[in-house]
């Protein structure tokens, strides 16, 4: 088949579509600022995110950015400020999927809320930022994209203006975010100072040429600060402090959005920056140490802190927030394992995990959104006996929980299994052991939730629960995908490995 010839800039299609959707929402709201026609607004947002998803999947399938025989080669835009390869498309897919789920679920969750258009357009602007992060190929575009993703996020977290928790969470998120941005930016300036370039490929060539050898401490500090900025975005220790509070205070769909899509976007810049800009051996020659050491430490500490803190939480949303920190630790293995020859495998495994995580974690938070919609309360006890009233949603919840814990044969098991085996292959015994121990611990608190909804008796009798269409649809889709990803894991594995191979 003759490929359809498109201008080069359309390679950024998914991100552009998200941006266009956001603008369309502004236009609609400008035309009639007083009326909040939720159907139109949610419809536009859903259509836009689904269109972005479709285009991203289509590009990925068609081989845009693929380097193989049937691929079109990596597309560089704006003198290499952006790059569209399989990695970028893979993460655009994740972002678009989560955005679509969140937007659909928000239709019911945000019912009766004033700032409808603002809400949807902020979500899509943040998604635009995340999608742009996936394609950004220069430290400055990365920073701008990161801010584009972050600023709407702050507003979204505190969009429930009359809810003290929401506003407090938003402010905390903003303050920690400002600190982290400052650190990140400082890191960028240091790297620029040491190498004289902002574009990732040029930084790498300077380092490889040995021209940065004089600035070992400077470059090392810069890299460390970059890690800090990334750790903030991915909610990794020690930059994780915002996460439990922000996730708990934010509207639950936004928690889902931040913990899945935003985290994935953080990882894509981590993957790209550290593989493209700082080639392992050359960089180690300059700064005297493998930067993977930092990621090994971060991965272990992050998964341990996340899972241990999650174990004794009473509040479901907070438990999920900490579990999300734990999962960031798992995904960090993708960078920690790069030092060895199996780097491509281990990074592919981390990407698989992020995709599966995009479904199961979003689904879990959306269940919390559903519970908040019902108004059943926030603690484990409040969830007791929900299974009898809402079996479908609770069955989906069980799938999410078991998948998050990594129980076969669900999707979460396979991605964790790949992470584990590739970590072993990369020789990271300690990391692999930490992964196993933490997974075992995580089963404790995940199954606690399942036990609460299915086995425990409700504390007080409750009436029949409503079945909001949008929330239900999003939860069911997420559950189905969590399960379906298992037989369909072959293509996912291929895509993820291809995406990893694109940059390793």
């Amino acid at each position, binding site marked *: 088949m003759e490929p359809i010839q498109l201008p080069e800039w359309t390679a950024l299609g998914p991100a552009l579509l998200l941006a266009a959707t956001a*603008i369309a929402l*502004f*236009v609609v*709201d*400008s*035309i009639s*600022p*007083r009326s909040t026609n939720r159907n139109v607004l949610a419809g536009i947002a859903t259509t836009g995110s689904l269109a972005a998803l479709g285009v991203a999947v289509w590009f990925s399938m068609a081989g845009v950015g693929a380097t193989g025989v049937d691929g079109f080669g990596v597309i560089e835009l704006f003198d290499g400020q952006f790059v569209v390869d399989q990695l970028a498309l893979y993460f655009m897919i994740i972002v678009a999927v989560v955005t679509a789920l969140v937007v659909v679920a928000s239709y019911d969750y945000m019912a009766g809320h*004033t700032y409808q258009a603002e809400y949807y357009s902020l979500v899509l602007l943040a998604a635009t930022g995340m999608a742009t992060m996936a394609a950004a190929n220069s430290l400055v575009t990365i920073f701008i994209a990161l801010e584009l993703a972050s600023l709407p996020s702050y507003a979204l977290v505190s969009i429930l*203006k*009359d809810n003290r928790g929401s506003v407090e969470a938003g402010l905390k998120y903003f303050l920690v975010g400002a600190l982290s941005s400052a650190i990140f930016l400082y890191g960028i300036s240091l790297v620029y100072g040491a190498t004289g370039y902002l574009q990732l490929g040029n930084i790498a060539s300077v380092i490889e040429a040995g021209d940065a050898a004089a600035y070992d401490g400077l470059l090392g500090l810069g890299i460390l600060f970059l890690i800090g900025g990334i750790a903030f975005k991915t909610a990794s220790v020690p930059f994780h402090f915002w996460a439990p509070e922000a996730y708990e205070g934010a509207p639950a769909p936004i928690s889902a959005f931040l913990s899945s899509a935003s985290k994935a976007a953080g990882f894509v810049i981590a993957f790209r920056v550290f593989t493209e800009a700082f080639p392992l051996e050359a960089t180690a020659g300059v700064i005297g140490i493998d930067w993977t050491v930092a990621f090994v430490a971060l991965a272990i500490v992050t998964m341990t802190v996340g899972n241990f803190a999650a174990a004794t939480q009473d509040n479901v949303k907070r438990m999920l927030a900490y579990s999300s920190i734990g999962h960031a630790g798992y995904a960090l293995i993708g960078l920690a394992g790069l030092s060895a020859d199996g780097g491509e495998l281990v990074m592919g495994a981390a990407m698989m995990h992020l995709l599966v995580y995009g479904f199961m974690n979003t689904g879990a938070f959306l269940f919390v959104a559903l519970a908040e919609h019902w108004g059943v309360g926030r603690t484990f006890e409040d969830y007791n006996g929900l299974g009898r009233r809402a079996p479908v949603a609770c069955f989906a919840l069980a799938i999410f929980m078991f998948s998050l814990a990594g129980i076969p044969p669900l999707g979460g098991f396979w991605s964790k299994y790949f992470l584990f085996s590739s970590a072993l292959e990369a020789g990271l015994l300690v990391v692999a052991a930490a992964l196993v121990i933490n997974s075992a611990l995580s089963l404790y608190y995940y199954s606690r939730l399942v036990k609460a909804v299915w086995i425990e008796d409700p504390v007080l009798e409750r009436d029949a629960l409503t079945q909001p269409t949008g929330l239900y649809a999003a939860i069911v889709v997420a559950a189905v995908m969590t399960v379906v990803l298992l037989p369909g894991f072959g293509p996912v594995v291929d895509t993820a490995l291809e995406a990893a191979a694109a940059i390793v």
Partner: protein
Amino acid sequence: MCVGFEAPNVTEMNDWIAIGALALVGLLIPLGMMAVSYLIRPSVPETSKRATYESGEVPTGGTRVRFNIQYYMVALLFLVFDIETVLLFPWAVVYLDALESDAVSLFEIMGPMVVFVAILLLGLGWAWRNGAVQWAQTPRQVEADRDRP
């Protein structure tokens, strides 16, 4: 050999001394001025000197008053156009050269800027429509806002 090694080291040290001296001078000048004024000023304690505005006018309230939110709104909108200028300037500088060279077409050089300005205008329009530059509300508008929590 040995001498050649010493020499650059000394100059390097000199650089740092200069920087240190600059910092020291920068610190000493204001401190010295404050010290001198402290020494030579007369000491006449009076309550009106403690007032916020030492202009004979008696303040009507504390300094920590709430500003109308519209000040911030306008400031934010101003910032938007500030940034627009930052981008427009270099664009305008290269605009004519770009037109003369055949490397890029008119569409290519105009398009992005038009889109950029259009997006900003759209934002302005949205802010306007949502009341960002509205300093007072008619009773009808107040009525309509009632159901907006």
